[in-house]
């Protein structure tokens, strides 16, 4: 019996030798003055489902939306460590477009000080400071935004979000005075939601998200932060916006491009994003 116990003891101690030897990976060490890259991946969804252009989604406003376009501007990225110190990504390079139709989902960040980051903050849209730099200063990004339907005219500025499609109202609305839309299926109306700032209100918002696990940026380790954007929140968030209430006088089309609704949408978008998970390690993945 004694011998057997010795055998067990030997087995365990032999094993523990190996354990003692395997804890050496230099990724825990943060080398001073080294830099790495990171990626924000924006995965567009609608209330827990994947956003597929052309597909229909019902919301809690009892409206059914078929989404044909979902583009938005992400800007002013800040990465935050657990001690609260912030790394502000260079402003000149910190404007990005996410577009479902153009298959733009990633924000690539480079030359970030190596470190362990626990939060990310970004703007939805374009801040006044940038806009007031004037047209020539931001020609390149402006042209890029034009290409993705994220601008009005220069004097009216950027569209922060361009969210378009068709919808079926909660209750078959009676528009005795009006014709159904000339094109498309009867009972379906077009909608356009163009979020942005205007002369009366600044609707640019910054959003801070906690990461469920640490993003470790190293020279060789490029984390990918997988963010879910819930398009449903735009009209069906803390503030409820019925598209039906925004039908034009002809009763054919609902456009939300200004006024009180943009302030409500700005508030809703604060809850539009969350980080699902973080990939660490080398290589590109989601």
């Amino acid at each position, binding site marked *: 019996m004694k011998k*057997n116990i010795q055998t067990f003891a030997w*087995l*365990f101690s032999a094993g523990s030798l190996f354990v003692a030897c*395997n804890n050496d990976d230099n990724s825990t060490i943060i080398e001073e003055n080294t830099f790495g890259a990171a990626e924000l991946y924006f995965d567009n969804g609608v209330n*827990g489902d*994947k956003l597929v252009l052309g597909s229909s989604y019902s919301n809690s406003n009892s409206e059914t939306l078929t989404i044909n376009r979902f583009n938005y501007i992400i800007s002013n990225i800040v990465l935050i460590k657990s001690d609260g110190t912030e790394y502000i990504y260079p402003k000149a390079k910190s404007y990005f477009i996410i577009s479902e139709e153009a298959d733009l989902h990633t924000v690539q960040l480079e030359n970030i000080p190596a470190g362990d980051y626990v939060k990310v903050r970004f703007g939805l849209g374009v801040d006044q400071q940038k806009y007031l730099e004037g047209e020539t200063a931001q020609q390149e990004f402006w042209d890029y935004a034009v290409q993705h339907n994220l601008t009005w005219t220069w004097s009216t500025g950027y569209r922060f979000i361009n969210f378009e499609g068709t919808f079926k109202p909660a209750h078959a609305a009676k528009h005795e005075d009006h014709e159904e839309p000339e094109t498309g299926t009867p009972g379906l109306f077009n909608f356009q939601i163009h979020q942005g700032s205007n002369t009366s209100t600044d609707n640019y918002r910054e959003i801070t998200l906690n990461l*469920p*696990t640490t993003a470790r940026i190293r020279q060789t380790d490029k984390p990918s932060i997988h963010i879910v954007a819930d398009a449903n929140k735009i009209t069906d968030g803390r503030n409820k916006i019925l598209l039906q209430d925004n039908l034009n006088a002809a009763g054919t089309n609902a456009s939300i491009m200004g006024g009180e609704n943009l302030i409500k949408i700005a508030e809703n978008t604060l809850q539009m994003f969350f980080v699902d998970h973080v990939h660490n390690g*080398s290589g*590109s993945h989601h």
Partner: protein
Amino acid sequence: MKKIIILFLLTIQCAQAQFNALLPNDEVDLPNEYSYFFDDCDACGCSASGGSMGFNSMLSEQFLGVRYMYQHYKSKDGVFNNSPWIDENFSTAQIWGRIPVNKKIEVMVMVPYHFLNREKASGNQTLDGMGDVTVMAFYNVLQTMNDSASFQHKILIGAGVKAPTGKFDNKNNGSVNPSFQLGTGSWDYNVAAEYIIRKDKWGLNSTLGYIVKTENDKKYQFGNQLNYGSTIFYTAAVKNVNIVPQLGVAGETYQPNKDYSEEVPYTKGDIFFGKIGVEIGYKKFSAGVNAMLPINQNLTGGRVEADYRVAFNINYIL
């Protein structure tokens, strides 16, 4: 006996052929928009050699043999409710044995070779290779004499290690789930107990096992795992052939995985199976087949579902 062996080999070949048919020879396709990291547990890939598939034979308690196991899972290829479910196939060919050292001590060995495959929308991913070898020593703490009581009891306790002989590839540690690996990459420690009670032709075999997993050199640590199972069996002799039908339950519980000491979301889980099988013994040989169907499961927050497991084995009785 030859007939039985031939029949058995044919069955294995048949299963293997079916499996191969599922496998186009595509290279591992890593980047994928919907690839997902946390959608699996240790149950599936690297520890397929153990789990509640059991490490025992009801017919012959000491043996050396080969076992083929097939596990089918479905996992979500994406983070959304309506993300597509993809099939995951885990096949394992294993040399296993429980070899007596002396009257009181026996050594259990499992040497697995895995064939892992998943059918993503973007193409197939396959991973083949040697898995983690488990070696355990069991000590017989109690054994009643055959004629001393109407109930015979046998209790074994054991301990051992699972060695990182299967490759843990950090490259997969992103787009591919952490269990889509040949091994945990770590030295893991097993403790187990087995209790067998027999009366006449009936028997009940119960096992309890716990695996303590350590952090591997990529700073990833699979969650500790509890396995348990209980199988009732009946030994019928038809001429020189022993037929042992069996029915049981088995379960597994997983602690969360850790990456750099941080808990990885959606990696803990549990599963409870019903189990049915039969073993046939003739002289020094035995052959067995069993199937496991989940009764209740909650793996990785519902992002992975186990469908079924089947296993075939052929043993030489020691």
